């Protein structure tokens, strides 16, 4: 009796463990273990870029991918030279490229295609024929704008006059965040953008612009600030405080990026919400490489979306 009970327990344990370990192995294989992948990064110009790089390196280490990392120091020539060096050495299975600018990639992408090495574009776009790369993995800026608007509408029950701090005019990040935001608030007749000015994604300019808006408009009519990035939001918060108002109470603050500084500001109760610009593009990019090498058909764009966070605890819980 006791023997059978014990063997039953063992059997159950075995039944649980064996498939799990098989699954583990299969998973590792599908994650690209043993592949050699070259990653050409723009540089290390911002905190976000650095965390993006670190996320890709960590992801590769976790998956057992041999990652060749090249920092181009903001130069397209360095990126092209790096890709050509990998192609010449001939031991990379795939190349991940975070392009510094959009044009000028045709010939090097063609060379990679000729050598049969797949290229995945991450982050910024390239202005080249779609057939020259496998897919593009990047943030969905429109989605970020929509998310910020949705939060604001819910928070104010659809009653809000918004000041928009615009990013660099013409940049995809700014234009698309505006589009997404405007799309959602258009559904609510009492939510509107009453002022929209550019702060070029810079903290000091965000502060200047907000200060001038507060002096020209009656602050009591402003319900919220939507900043296209956290830096401008932090600048705006300073301006709001200097005008004798309480940020996040008198004027709600919502922005995009989820940089460490914005969580300090949240801890101090001066910011309401931020939408994460996900630096975790390595995972989807490696998945795309594996899928491509397995002969799967991929869409030409794989968006990665970040969540909206209203506290440091929420954000940390997601990590």
């Amino acid at each position: 009796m006791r023997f059978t009970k014990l063997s039953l327990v063992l059997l159950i344990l075995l039944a649980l463990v064996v498939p799990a370990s098989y699954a583990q192995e299969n998973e590792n294989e599908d994650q690209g273990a043993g592949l050699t992948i070259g990653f050409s990064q723009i540089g290390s110009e911002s905190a976000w870029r650095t965390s993006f790089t670190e996320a890709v390196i960590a992801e590769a280490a976790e998956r057992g991918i041999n990652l060749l990392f090249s920092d181009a120091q903001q130069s397209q020539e360095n990126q092209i030279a790096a890709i050509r060096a990998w192609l010449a050495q001939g031991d990379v299975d795939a190349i991940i490229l975070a392009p510094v600018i959009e044009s000028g990639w045709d010939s090097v992408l063609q060379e990679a295609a000729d050598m049969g090495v797949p290229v995945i574009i991450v982050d910024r776009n390239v202005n080249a024929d779609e057939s020259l790369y496998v897919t593009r993995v990047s943030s969905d800026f429109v989605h970020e704008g929509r998310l910020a608007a949705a939060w604001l509408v819910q928070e104010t029950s659809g009653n809000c006059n918004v000041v928009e701090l615009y990013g660099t005019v013409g940049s995809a990040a700014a234009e698309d965040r505006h589009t997404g935001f405007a799309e959602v608030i258009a559904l609510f007749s009492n939510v509107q953008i009453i002022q929209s000015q550019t702060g070029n994604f810079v903290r000091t300019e965000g502060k200047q612009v907000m200060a001038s808006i507060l002096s020209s408009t009656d602050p009591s009519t402003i319900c919220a600030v939507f900043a296209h990035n956290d830096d401008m939001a932090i600048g705006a918060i300073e301006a709001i405080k200097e005008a004798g108002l309480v940020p996040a109470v008198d004027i709600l603050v919502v922005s995009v990026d989820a940089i460490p500084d914005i969580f300090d500001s949240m801890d101090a109760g001066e910011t309401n919400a931020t939408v994460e610009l996900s630096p975790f593009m390595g995972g989807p990019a490696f998945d795309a490489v594996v899928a491509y090498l397995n002969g799967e058909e991929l869409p030409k764009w794989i968006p990665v979306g970040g969540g909206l966070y209203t506290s440091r605890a929420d954000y940390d819980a997601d990590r």
Partner: protein
Amino acid sequence: MKSRFIPLLMTFIVFAAMYLFAYSRFSSFGSMRIVGNLLRDNAYWGIAAIGMTFVIISGGIDLSVGSVIAFTGVFCALMIGRNGWDPIPTFIVMLTIGTFFGATMGMLIHYFKIPPFIATLSGLFLARGMAYVLSTESIRIDHPFYESVSKLVYIFPDKGRFTFVAGAFLLVLFIGIFVAHFTRFGRNVYAMGGNPDAALLLGVPTGRTTVMIYALSSFLATFAGIVLSLSKQSGDSTIAVGLELDVIAAVVIGGTLLTGGVGYVIGTFIAVMTLGTIQTYLTLDGSLTPWWIKIVIGVLLFGFVGLQKLLSSRQGLRLFSFGRDRKELQQSA
């Protein structure tokens, strides 16, 4: 051995050592793929470095080359890519503008006695500013001429590529060597760098030569910009920022004396290939940060400037004279 050959010899030894080290780790350094890449990827700044060699031999400096390259790229992209100009006339117009630009800096330096550092610094800002005024975004060039140039390539059996751009680089190198050593202009450049007052007394037309030196440097920087535009098929005003410093470093590592009078075009070429080799090695290694190339450049520069200092002192000369040439050295010293 003549002491003025020692820096050149050191340049070659450094290159050979670096290349063999890289080859010992990555076998592809023995293939035409890497050799072809080194030539075409470094062509644009190598061409500018050949122009800079003349400037530094004459005792001057040209800080404007990076900006001139960027301006050229944007100008070509705007005219060909947007306004539909034909490439050849565009290149001729651009080379004329570039040459005139350099000649103007040369005139400022000679006739108004403005130090080369300041005259070409203003050139740096002027050309970069004009590039930004033309366009702040990168412009794509779609033109059949560019397509056909990109197809002008000799492919080696091991898939190495000898491109039009690489050929242009080698052509400029050979013409540069010829001009430096076999023409009156070349001799005048060396004479001015060695001792400008003596050169003037010996009848060297220093004014005309100065103007020609800076015109040549800007002409080659413009040509470098065209070469870059051909290989990238686009133009962008943010490229080549700070490139002049890499170019100057390559010239010094190539064995040219910063004070002028001594130097070789071939040395500059070898130095450009050395830096290209290091960059390729760092890329293939993939674990070292590329900032190491800056450290290596720093160490090499320090070494070469130290070597020059040593050679220009009497004691240093004796150290390197190895007995046989002592008489000759004493005469020259």
